């Protein structure tokens, strides 16, 4: 520990941005901008990236920049660093005052308001995993910080949290695995004031989808590749300007950079059970030109899959905590047979089990994250965290509705939305990265 600089080295930079940002003043004051429900007019595949910027190719100078990993502290500790506490404090405030109150309206428009996304740009959400040398915030990469941030955002609303984190996933992927040229070409857009909508797309709409057995294929051309296939779970695909897409190259999975404005790229809204505010879409690729991300190493791809799953586990933690806090209050306030329903063991024990399973999955998720940031093997821990988040995240979602009975089934309470959002956790691949 002694030889390292300030544990994460992020906090001050973030706080500086926050202090100089008008976001804080607006927190809680911003009226949700109403948007017409428009996916009727957007039905069917349409050319993607109509309004997309052109990314000016920048020749690389050789070695890509990478963030350092943190060292092994050797001490069992559950205390976030001071930096992490500060960041989580700010993100939690944002989640509580902007995301939660705006959740219902965002869901109705199947999108996250641009103002909300702009606020996350102001506090540098997409910069956390970008190396300092490339305009990012930190020399060291912390998956734990990523987990804590995703958790805090999802406590407000998972759908909008995913929308907010999607560009960050692309920036993170390019930072971690992109070539120097790709970093120079794309990252400036993500470190500027007008962060583009962008999505990391791994899923495909087939049963038993396995990210290591992809249906989408990449074929080598003269100076690059073309991709063909159908992808799903592309966050805000209708708005996206850049995609990172998983495709099979000679039987092995790899990530490719696809510009939305390119030929052969089309998107269609894919309204789903939940995560409505994430604006999920399908992405159709027909000989779409693409560039291999970095050198396309299989280990990089594995890491992408794992870090995305870690992100989904983190999101589950936040939403499950929302369920716990909401039901705690409800069962004490709601009376039946002349006393609060919380006085019944069958009710109280359900709440106790929500807390127990949530704490368990939280600890496993944090362990996976801390191992990832210390560059230790973490495949096992991610798999276990994902399993718990899928299993108990959903259990908590369904118990949340059950505890409210009929009231849980109607939109008067948010538990039915959390139920729908939590179903995503065990099945989503890609989209977020921590």
């Amino acid at each position: 520990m002694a030889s390292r600089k300030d544990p994460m080295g992020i906090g001050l930079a973030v706080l500086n941005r926050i202090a100089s940002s008008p976001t804080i003043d607006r927190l809680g004051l911003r009226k949700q901008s109403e948007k017409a429900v428009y996916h009727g007019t957007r039905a069917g595949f349409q050319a993607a990236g109509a309004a997309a910027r052109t990314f000016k190719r920048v020749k690389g100078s050789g070695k890509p920049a990478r963030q350092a990993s943190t060292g092994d502290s050797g001490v069992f500790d559950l205390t976030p660093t001071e930096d992490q506490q500060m960041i989580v404090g700010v993100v939690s405030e944002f989640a509580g005052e902007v995301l939660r109150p705006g959740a219902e309206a965002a869901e109705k428009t199947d999108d996250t308001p641009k103002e909300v996304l702009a606020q996350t740009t102001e506090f540098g959400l997409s910069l956390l995993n970008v190396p300092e040398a490339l305009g990012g915030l930190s020399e060291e990469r912390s998956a734990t910080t990523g987990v804590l941030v995703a958790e805090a955002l999802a406590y407000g609303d998972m759908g909008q949290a995913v929308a907010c984190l999607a560009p960050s996933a692309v920036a993170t992927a390019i930072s971690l695995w992109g070539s120097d040229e790709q970093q120079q070409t794309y990252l400036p857009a993500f470190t500027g004031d007008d962060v583009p909508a962008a999505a990391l797309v791994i899923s495909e709409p087939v049963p038993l989808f396995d990210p290591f057995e992809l249906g989408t294929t990449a074929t080598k051309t003269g100076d690059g590749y073309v991709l063909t296939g159908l992808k799903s779970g592309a966050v805000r695909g209708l708005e996206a300007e850049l995609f990172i897409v998983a495709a099979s190259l000679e039987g092995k999975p790899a990530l490719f950079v696809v510009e939305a404005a390119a030929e052969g790229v089309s998107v269609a809204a894919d309204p789903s059970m939940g995560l409505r505010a994430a604006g999920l879409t399908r992405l159709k690729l027909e000989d779409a030109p693409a560039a291999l991300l970095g050198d396309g190493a299989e280990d990089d791809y594995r890491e992408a899959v794992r870090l995305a799953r870690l992100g989904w586990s983190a999101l589950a933690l936040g939403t499950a905590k929302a369920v716990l806090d909401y039901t705690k209050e409800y069962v004490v306030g709601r009376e039946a047979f002349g006393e609060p329903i919380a006085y019944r063991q069958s009710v109280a024990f359900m709440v106790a089990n929500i807390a127990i399973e949530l704490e368990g999955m939280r600890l496993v998720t944090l362990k996976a994250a801390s191992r990832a940031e210390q560059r230790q093997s973490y495949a096992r821990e991610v798999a276990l965290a994902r399993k718990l988040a899928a299993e108990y995240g959903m259990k908590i979602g369904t118990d949340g509705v059950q505890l409210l009975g009929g009231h849980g089934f109607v939109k008067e309470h948010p538990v039915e939305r959390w139920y729908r959002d939590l179903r995503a956790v065990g099945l989503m691949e890609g989209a977020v990265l921590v």
Partner: protein
Amino acid sequence: MINLDTPKKFRAFVDQANQVADNFLRANSRKYDLAEHSYPKELDLLASLVDGMSDSGQGQGAGAAGVRRGEDEAEGKKSKVKNGTNMSSVLSVIEMCWGDVGLLLSMPRQGLGNSAIASVATDEQLERYKGTWAAMAITEPSFGSDSAAIKTTAVKDGDHYVLNGEKIYVTSGERADSVVVWATLDKSLGRAAIKSFVVSKDTPGIRVERLEHKLGIRASDTAVILLDNCRVHESNLLGSPEIDVKQGFAGAMATFDNTRPLVAGMAVGCARASLELIRELLEKAGVDIDYDRPATSQSYAAATFLQMEADWEAALLLTLEAAWLADNRKPNSMEASMAKAKAGRVGNDITLRCVELAGTLGYSETEFLEKWSRDSKILDIFEGTQQIQQLIVARRLLNLSSTQLK
């Protein structure tokens, strides 16, 4: 900085504990499972080894001893995060129970009564009882979870107390040198009047009535103990003799905040043994566990294994969290119960499912799987059943009293 791996300073010691568990406990596991009630003499050597380790500053390292808060105050500065004796005890118990739960419970001088003494005794008593092997006697035929219903009486007579009553489920009740007996000074004053007494086994009036025949942990003797006008000196009362309606029972119950993470650790260790063996057996049968491929596209056995391992990891970390909180002087009553609830139930579930996956091979005494699935059951019962843990967690979480949430 968040980090949930085994603390660096305990890694070598955990390895050591694992070897001890393998050579002394696992090696004698079946022998004493079959020969219930016979004394596991191999443990005498081990116990002196453990004593040696304690004396050399390894703390409560190798056994199920209790933990005395404040003990390692001098070790670290106030603001520094500590990994102390709560953590090392839990880690040690996990390794030992990976070896054999029943034999760990039979470890000389490492009884639950020692936990109680370590947790609530005065310094003078601590010195006086050093080296004793103390069993714990709470339960009576008429109650289990409801410890406040104690009928065993302690009546003051001069500078002595006279104890009368029947105690059951006394772990190591026959082998221990002394028994920590819970008794009431005045039944009409309820919980506050319940006190614990250290009763040496050679005191006239205390006797072992019989030993139980059990589903599991057969290496550990479980005794019925009768107290018939048993006179103990007043200095044998642990803690304060005053009946403080506010404090009394809470103080005695505080022992459990320290011992519950240890019992959770027992379940974690026992379940790990099953998981390791079933994995080996499955792999020999051609089932590979892949952490990257979705569980849904792996075999049922592999997916089941992943689910079990995930639950196990959650139980492990909840247990370490409870210990970590105690080491860092933070309240851990709810977390201790969470750990015990999760570890108790998944420990039992995992060991039973491993038997199922291994079929008749797992059901047969040729492997340990069947034994571990019998041993694990008690861990979801003693030191507070699954349901009692849920009750504790729910009351804390919802801020309800015991009259509101019964």
